[in-house]
């Protein structure tokens, strides 16, 4: 149960990094990646996964 970031869409704005309540998102190279071990899909924390809710690019933060 985890989200992932579609690298080719990522603008590397970093909004997901600081919205993530689990510190699961880090910069790797030019884009951000989600650590599947830390990601909870925000279940029980928020109504929707925060990375997907803030991401400016459609279909970029999606279920892995």
């Amino acid at each position: 149960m985890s989200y992932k970031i579609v690298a080719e869409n990522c603008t590397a704005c970093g909004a997901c990094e600081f919205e993530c309540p689990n510190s699961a998102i880090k910069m790797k190279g030019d884009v951000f990646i989600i650590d599947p071990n830390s990601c909870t899909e925000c279940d029980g924390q928020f109504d929707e996964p925060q990375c997907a809710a803030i991401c400016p690019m459609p279909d970029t933060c999606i279920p892995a």
Partner: protein
Amino acid sequence: MSQLIHIQPLESKGGIPSPRPQTEGCASSACGKMSDAHGLADDIWEKVKDHPCYSEEAHQYFARMHVAVAPACNIQCNYCNRKYDCANESRPGVVSERLTPEQALRKVIAVANEVSQLSVLGIAGPGDACYDWEKTKETFEEVAKVIPDVKFCLSTNGLALADCIDDIAKMNIDHVTLTINMVDPEIGAKIYPWIFFNNKRWTGIEASRILHERQMLALELLKERGILTKVNSVMIPDINDTHLLEVNRVVKEKGAFLHNIMPLISDPAHGTHFGLTGQREPSHQELMALQNQLADGTKLMRHCRQCRADAIGLLGEDRGQAFSMDKIPETLEYNPANRASYREIVAQERGEHLQQKKSAERKLAELEAKPTILAAVVSKQGGRINQHFGHAQEFQIYEVSPYGVKFISHRKIPLYCAEGNGDDQRLDNIITALEGIQAVLCARIGDCPREKLEKAGIEVNVAYAHDWIESGLSSWYAARFSKENRRIA
């Protein structure tokens, strides 16, 4: 000659010689009451006089730089595409490289050492400066330690401003620009597909209702703290164009100091929603008509160049690419000498400029009732008619009448002279951009473009080359219309 007139960044201690003998009495900005001269209260003038974006007069002398440290944004606008970045593209939200606060500090020092006109450091994204607050804040804090006299400003959509208002006030950020495109959520829904607020993505009218309420709150908080606020509005034909009259009324009432109407940029190549759906941009004429409707009783900014989130230099230019991070050394020290001596020169130039403006006004006031006309000036800045027509990338449009000389807007044009040759296609585009303009005043012009302009019914005049803009325009106007008088008589 142009060296004399254009206030170049200082390369030597000698500065620039005065282009003409000093007029009697006034050699510094201490002359006269500034509040009279600029139509602003003294305390406001003190805040804006060196800020190129807030003062039409200051933009002729001072430069700004934006550092792109805040890439994250909390709303989506239909005129923005965050993926798109092109080094030739000039519009807000666009950058070529994003910086960490530490890199930003090095860049600011490098620019301050080279660009003596630098007076303002702004953070305008490319996302939202208040939403991406930690990076914005760290950047300002680091720069303030090294260059304490640079002014700070930031630009935001206002949604997150309330969260950082205490920091803003504490850090002496005394200029904030809010982009407000509507005061009616129904209209907002056509501009903003979504916002992110309180850990939730909101869409539709609800999103715009929240954004509107937060923007109004932002205006109130800024007013309460005495922070000078400019409102930017993007004019979108058939969506918010007529509504901007209402926006103007509301933001003025809530204490905004300046209102800046910017035309929508919707080139399909940018891949924005508006670009892809064929939403058209307003014409020069439509923009001017709207600005004229708003001109009564409010300060309207007309000299905005819609610059990039990493722009560097005077408003008409962008030297950002000359200062990319790969050109900036790892360690460097700030040298305040250039900026200090430039300020002395500006103080002197300003004094003279003010005198010239006043005598231009007197000259015009003596004329009997005469038409109000629009004229285009070609200027490399510094407030003078000092550029070759073929080198111009914009016209500065002025309204001239017996009531005075008033700056109206700038119009971007393609460079006529490229690689030493004029280009006919570009000249046609330039003539199109001169719609409604009676005359062009420039420092020099080739015979060929002169003939074509005259054929198109546009008068060309180089008699006031290197003169102050107001003085040149008023002399031209007085001569032009008294000549007509004689002919009639």
